């Protein structure tokens, strides 16, 4: 399991199957919550996540693919597109500089 300190997170990438639908929706949501901490949020296709991503966020249904593609990155999975506790945890970890694993 890879981990990262919340304070080291500079770039979060939201990945989805096509990289142009649901990931864009989440990107604009996360941008709003994470901007105050100097974190940039981008969206990508799950097979083409940019190398400089610190944390990758994707739906639980795509986790196997994301982990397979990115063995050395922290991949955060979520269930619901809105109000999932995973997003609160991510924000919390970045805000408080806590360790984030996944």
């Amino acid at each position, binding site marked *: 399991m890879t981990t990262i300190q919340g304070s080291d997170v500079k770039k979060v990438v939201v990945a989805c199957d096509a990289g142009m639908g649901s990931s864009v929706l989440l990107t604009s949501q996360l941008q709003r919550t994470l901007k105050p901490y100097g974190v940039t949020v981008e969206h990508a296709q799950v097979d083409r996540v940019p190398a400089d991503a610190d944390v990758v966020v994707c739906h639980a249904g795509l986790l196997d693919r994301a982990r397979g593609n990115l063995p050395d990155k922290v991949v955060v999975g979520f269930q*619901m597109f809105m109000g999932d506790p995973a997003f609160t945890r991510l924000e919390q970890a970045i805000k408080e500089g806590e360790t984030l694993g996944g």
Partner: protein
Amino acid sequence: MSNQQTHERMASVRSGIQRFGSFLSSMVMPNIGAFIAWGLVTALFIETGWTPNATLAELVGPMITYLLPLLIAYTGGHLVYDRRGGVVGAVAAVGVIVAADMPMFLGAMVMGPLGAYLMKKIDQVLQPRTPTGFEMLVNNFSAGILGGLLAALGVYVVAPAVTAIARGLGAGVQFLVDMSLLPLVSIIVEPAKVLFLNNALNHGVLGPLGVARVAEEGKAIEFLIETNPGPGLGILLACMFFGPKISRATAPGAIIIHFFGGIHEIYFPYILAQPKLILAAIGGGMSGLATFMVLDAGLLATPSPGSIIALMAVTPRGDHVAVLAGVAVATVVSFVLASLLLGFGRSERRAEKAEKGAAAAQNTKEATS
């Protein structure tokens, strides 16, 4: 075999299918703007369109025969081997396009990546052996010769084969329509959607089939199979009224994003959380398709994203009522089924009560001990 192993194998099969489907759809999806342009031009200017205009209708044929398949071939090649792959892929696809007597999307999806892959392999052999100063000469001519060869090969070998396959698939769909069996595909399509194969199915399989039918018949029901927002809307509505507490709170926002924004992914988690709801999606999908079939509804292009606005925009003149009827029927059926499956919220209320009861019991227990 242990459970753990079975689980891992299932997961790898699933991501394998996802990945292949993703490859197919990522050849098509970046070009959807071009499909929409073509769909709008067709809806407006052909003889049966809103404002028939013979001069502008000239756009329709070349766009669907050459532009769209070439864009797909280029994008497919680009995925495999960057811009160089895209160029060779597009050249390679021309042969299939010219030789076939139907729009050759399937052929473009084969030749684009194939041309790029071969170029990559040839470069791996040639480039290390190229003397300094001859790189440009060798690169340009290796790409040109390979592209030309593949295009010629496409005319004689690939086109007949791919045409036969495309005809076979099209005939398969036609058979289902003729036998009134088309609604049965929902049994496959709806669960596959929820497993995040939605783009693969719609853009990788149904889209190319639909385009071939549009070229022949002026509209295609294939575009409505995966993109009907009705089943998802019904489920979200049911969750809004009768779902677990957390879904009741988020469902209204999800409904807007799903139905108007067209991001269907947003309703998948509600089904994944309560898998029995897939029955409602299947029922909704089947009844919607049956309605489309009876009313002879069809679309001109893939509505992407699957928003009601996109659906209406690519509906041919005169079909709007039929399309709306199919969406409405799917919504109602899926809503009723999902509400039944959720027990109209009864089990949810019971669970909440039980939880409260358990908490109370816990409190008394702690107090007495």
